[in-house]
């Protein structure tokens, strides 16, 4: 990471110009650096200005003030044709050009390099072939876009961006329409691409847990427009991560790196002990039922989980007697009795 950054933003203000009135500033004094070989995830709650930032960085929307340097050249001074050789995009909008085959669409990525009629040279074909290999899309090269699933489509759009052969790739919510396996695959693909090709990849996403795992760096956008950047783990440990998504009835568990739905109602504390994976899943079930899991063994209610011959056994102690359960389902049914009655 000794290279100089591909993208630099200094004192950047983003937002919308509203005629003669004062511009609506979404976020200001942003200082950002994007280094080659890095996968950076831009995270933030809805409405924090992720899309505005992505649009501004990609030159689709004018900045309000400050400056953006791409490869040491100011974004404002770059002609569209030159910018196209430095930065490529994958957008959220669904492309429905059904008559285009996959290879035709990927070939469109070579537009900045081809002549007036767009004929492909050998180098162009090589790049197209490489980017289809890299994204594993060659198998449907001759299929039409409307025959593909959303996951396949998104990989094709990534292949198109790759064939544009830019050092910087910006993706706006590339995982938005995908199911979990496809989301994971997409993130893995992007992570590997950043490492192998030394490209700088910036993507905005709502996939917090995936971003925590795959990103080299996070840009966290707070609802007030403040942006904090850093290595994911640092941001989790210093509380920035939690602060960005602060909302009632919602709790970030620093131990597991996941968000839990936390209810405000008065709840009964239960002590839980046993093997860690059993504790993890039992805890989830208990939390869903509004119990608070505590590490204090002096509580009235205790659950001890033991496992004999792979079969877990839950032993529930309510202070007077101990009951054994073989499934969480049965345990939860009985626990309903010690639940404080919900007053609505």
């Amino acid at each position, binding site marked *: 990471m000794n290279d100089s950054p591909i993208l630099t933003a200094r004192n950047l203000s983003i937002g919308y110009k509203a005629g003669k009135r004062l511009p609506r500033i979404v976020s200001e004094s942003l200082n950002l650096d994007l280094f080659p070989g890095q996968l950076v995830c831009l995270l933030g709650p809805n409405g924090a200005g992720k899309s505005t930032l992505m649009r501004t960085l*990609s*030159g*689709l929307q004018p900045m309000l003030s400050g400056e953006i340097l791409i490869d040491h050249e100011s974004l404002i001074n770059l002609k*569209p*044709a*030159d*910018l*196209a*050789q430095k*930065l*490529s*995009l994958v*957008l959220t*909008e669904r*492309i*429905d*050009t*059904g*008559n*285009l*085959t996959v*290879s*035709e*669409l990927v*070939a*469109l*990525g070579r*537009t*900045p390099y*081809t002549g*007036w*009629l*767009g004929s*492909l040279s050998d180098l162009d*074909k090589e790049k*197209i072939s490489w980017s289809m290999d890299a994204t594993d899309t060659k198998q449907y*090269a*001759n299929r*039409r876009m*409307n025959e593909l699933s959303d996951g396949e489509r998104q990989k094709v759009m990534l292949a198109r961006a790759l064939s*544009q052969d830019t050092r910087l790739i910006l993706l706006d919510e590339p995982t938005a329409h995908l199911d979990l396996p496809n989301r994971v695959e997409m993130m893995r693909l992007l992570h590997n691409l950043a490492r192998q090709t030394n490209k700088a990849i910036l993507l905005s996403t709502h996939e917090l847990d995936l971003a925590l795992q795959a990103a080299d760096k996070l840009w966290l956008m707070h609802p007030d427009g403040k942006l904090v950047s850093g290595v994911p783990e640092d941001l989790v440990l210093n509380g920035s991560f939690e602060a960005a998504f602060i909302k009632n009835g919602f709790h970030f568990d620093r131990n597991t790196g996941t968000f839990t739905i936390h209810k405000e109602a008065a709840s009964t504390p239960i002590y839980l002990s046993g093997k860690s994976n059993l504790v993890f899943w039992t805890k989830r079930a208990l939390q869903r039922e509004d119990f608070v899991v505590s590490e204090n063994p002096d509580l009235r209610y205790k659950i001890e989980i033991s496992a004999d011959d792979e079969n877990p056994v839950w032993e529930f102690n309510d202070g007077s007697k101990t009951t054994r359960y073989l499934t969480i389902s049965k345990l939860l049914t009985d626990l309903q009795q010690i639940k404080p009655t919900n007053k609505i």
Partner: protein
Amino acid sequence: MQIVSQSSSNSRRLIIIGLSVLAVLFFMLDIMLGSVSIPFGEVVKIVFSGESDTTAWLFIIEKIRLPKAITAILVGCGLSVSGLQMQTLFRNPLAGPSELGITAGAGLGVAAVMLTSGSTASIYAIRQLGVSGSWLIVVMASLGAALVLSMVLLIAGRIKDNVILLIVGVMVGTITVSVISIWQYFSQPEQLQEYILWTFGSLGGIVQYHLCVLSGVVILGLLIAFASSKALNAMLLGENYARSMGLTVGKTRFIIMASTSLLTGSITAFCGPIGFVGIAIPHITRALLGTSDHRILIPCCCLVGTVLMLVCDIISQMPGTQTVLPINVVTSLLGAPVVIWVIVSRNNLRSSFS
């Protein structure tokens, strides 16, 4: 695009050859058929050597049927390519010169010439105009077309909904037609009759320098369209992607609009508003060739347009009878079902654009 599999490029070549053969065939048929029957051998002789024993036949072929067939080809090429460009520009399968009121705009331009010149002549009389007059008409009609096109683009350019664009286009077209109607209201009955004749559309009567002007402008428009086929391909992915691939979207849009306006304007000025050719032929061509690549689509639209316009012209002459149907009626009869097919087959609507 060269990575197309061998079989599909082979079948594509076959289709193109077939279309070319059909184009030549119908061209000859169009010249041969008519109220006066001329033997096939004579037709070939007149077309290729320009000589015949019967001066009447020579006159009919050279002064009436040949110009009419050439006009049919120009109309078929021009309107279908302008429709194709509009469908890509708006990313909307329902866009077309007559559907979005562009032909009405061209009509307004023509009307404006007549109105400001203070001439008692009606639009229909443009065929009696001299060379300068025909240029003026073409320029005004193209400007009128460009005016309506930019208005539609301004209102509906950002709307992706197919139907809303169509409604906006129809509304703008209605406004334009209303303006023309106001002028009509203050016109003489005989002018009105001639105006109505113009709206039926006609491929005939465009001879000598008028034909030269029309050919020149249409060929210019087609060349601009073909030169922007790379940009049109990039526009398939939408403006944001096009811009990210190095296109200056404003400039591209201006060039496409210029080409569309020239094609629609000149053709409408001389032949009247001819409906459905512009919307139907791009769809037929796309379905036939199974591609969205404009470098193939533009020439092939010209071929399909040529074939179908010649067929329409043959039908309008009602072979074997003395009657001649207005060309607009024939194109609508053939074109409207295609539009219905496009709307009904939702898959088609979704897959071509939007």
